[in-house]
Structure formats: C-alpha cells, structure tokens
C-alpha cells in the first residue's frame, strides 16, 4: 500500500512538473517553428562551420601609394601599346595633357 502511494505521489509530481513546463512554453511556438520550415536546408548548412568574409579595406598609405604606382605603370604600358598599334597616334602634350614620357 505504502509503495503504491509513493508511486502515485511520484506520478502526480512528475505530471505537474510536465504540465508546468508546457504551460510556460509560448502558445505560438508552432507558428515560430513553421516560419523557419520554409528555409532551404542546404542554405542553412552552408552557413555552418564556415568563415563568412565581410572584410573592409583599411587605410594603409603604403598600399595606396603602391596602387597608384601600379596604376601609372599600367597607363604607360597601355600608351606604349597604343602607340605601337597606331604609328600615327599623337599623344596630347602640355597644356592639354602630359603622360610623363
């Protein structure tokens, strides 16, 4: 009899605890779950365990100087190629433009 009472009280306590837990859950939990069901599972998998690059360009005077130098080099190369392609090509000179050659 004692054992049965003990089992009954245990079941009652467990039942109450479970009810309390579910009562605390938001009643619209199913809606929230369904909202995420439309997402493609592969899209989600692609964001897991990876590094997402959102890098920015930092101000570095040395790199900027080097980029400008490279730009000038490319421009002069283009100019040389253009001159070789068209022998009649006359590059504008000062004051309309001077290309440093």
């Amino acid at each position, binding site marked *: 009899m004692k054992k049965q009472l003990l089992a009954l009280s245990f079941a009652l306590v467990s039942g109450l605890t479970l009810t309390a837990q579910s009562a605390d859950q938001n009643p619209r939990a199913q809606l929230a779950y369904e909202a995420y069901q439309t997402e493609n599972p*592969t899209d989600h998998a692609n964001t897991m365990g*990876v590094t997402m690059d959102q890098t*920015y360009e930092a101000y570095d005077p040395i790199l900027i100087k080097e980029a400008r130098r490279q730009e000038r080099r490319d421009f002069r190369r283009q100019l040389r190629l253009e001159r070789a392609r068209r022998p009649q090509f006359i590059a504008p000179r000062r004051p309309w433009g001077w290309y440093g050659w």
Partner: protein
Amino acid sequence: MKPFLPLLLFAILLSTSCNRQVQRIETDTTVDLSGRWNDTDARLTAAELVSEIMGQPWLERHKRNNSGEEPVVIVGMVENKSHEHIEAEVFIKELEKAFVKSGRVRLVQGGAKREQIRRERADQQNNASQSTMKSWGLEVGADYMLQGSINSIMDAYKRKKVIYYQIDMTLTNMETNEVVWIGDKKIKKFVKN
C-alpha cells in the same frame, strides 16, 4: 684557358641561378614577415580559447542541470569583419580537437560535412545490407552552438602601423538562447616598414 671559359661561365650561371633555399622549421616557431595575420596568431588564439572554454563554469553547470550528461556542441558561423582574409577553421579545429580529446564535451557535425553524411546515409538505404544500414532520425541534437566574430582596427601613418585583432567566440544555449560562455583573444602588432 680558352676552352675552359664557356665551362666556367656555365658554372657561374649555375651557381647564381639556384639560390632558392627551403628550410623546414618547427610549426610553433614564430616568423613574422609582413605583419599580417599569420599562423602564430592562429595558434595563440587557439591556445587561449581552448584554455578558456574548458576551464569555465558552464561545463559543470550543464552537467549539474542535466544529470551528469556531457554537453553537445555544434560549430556555427564565424564572421570575419576584419580587413584581412582570416580563416577561422584553423583555430576552430583546435577547439573541436580539445572537445573530443577531453571527453568532457560532445561534438556533432554540421555544415557541408553533415550534408555529406546524410547523403551517404540516404545511399545506404538503397545499397547497404539491412543489418548494417543506418537509420534516420537518430542524430544527436546539439545543446549549444559555438559562434564567433573576428574584428580588426588598423591605424597607419607614413611607414608605421598598428594592427589590432579581436577574436570573440560565444557559446549559446540552443533552447533558451542564453549565452553561457564568451571567450576572446586580442592581438596587437606594431609594424614599421
């Protein structure tokens, strides 16, 4: 002397053209060349994060609240918001290794690797024998997700620059969204060109 001249020239050419040297060094050696993020930074970050995550109270608290069960962790996304390309996998793998080696934290696979496992399991449903075929719906659900971000600040003037990196990792409870652990590693460098 004359017949030896081409030979001598060839010898000089050979000796000057092959000047590349490759030297094997220990993986824990610090070699700073450009001042950018390098293997030493990744190693230091890994060491700091491993010691922090394994020594914090979240582990014991989880066990206490879950009748001694080890926490299950999944690795989420790491956002690199710095000015350089930094691959977080290098130090994340160290964290994963520490989890598995210690036996105190369980790890579940995520991302593309998990997709591959699921595809293989699907393939087994058609090709494997019934006794060896693995069932669906028995994966271990993660208790926590590990996420992180990498930030940097650079200050440069003429030929000098100071670079600051901050790597933050957080562990969040999957059910309650509670952040149970935050770890970080800060690195500052002064570079003079």
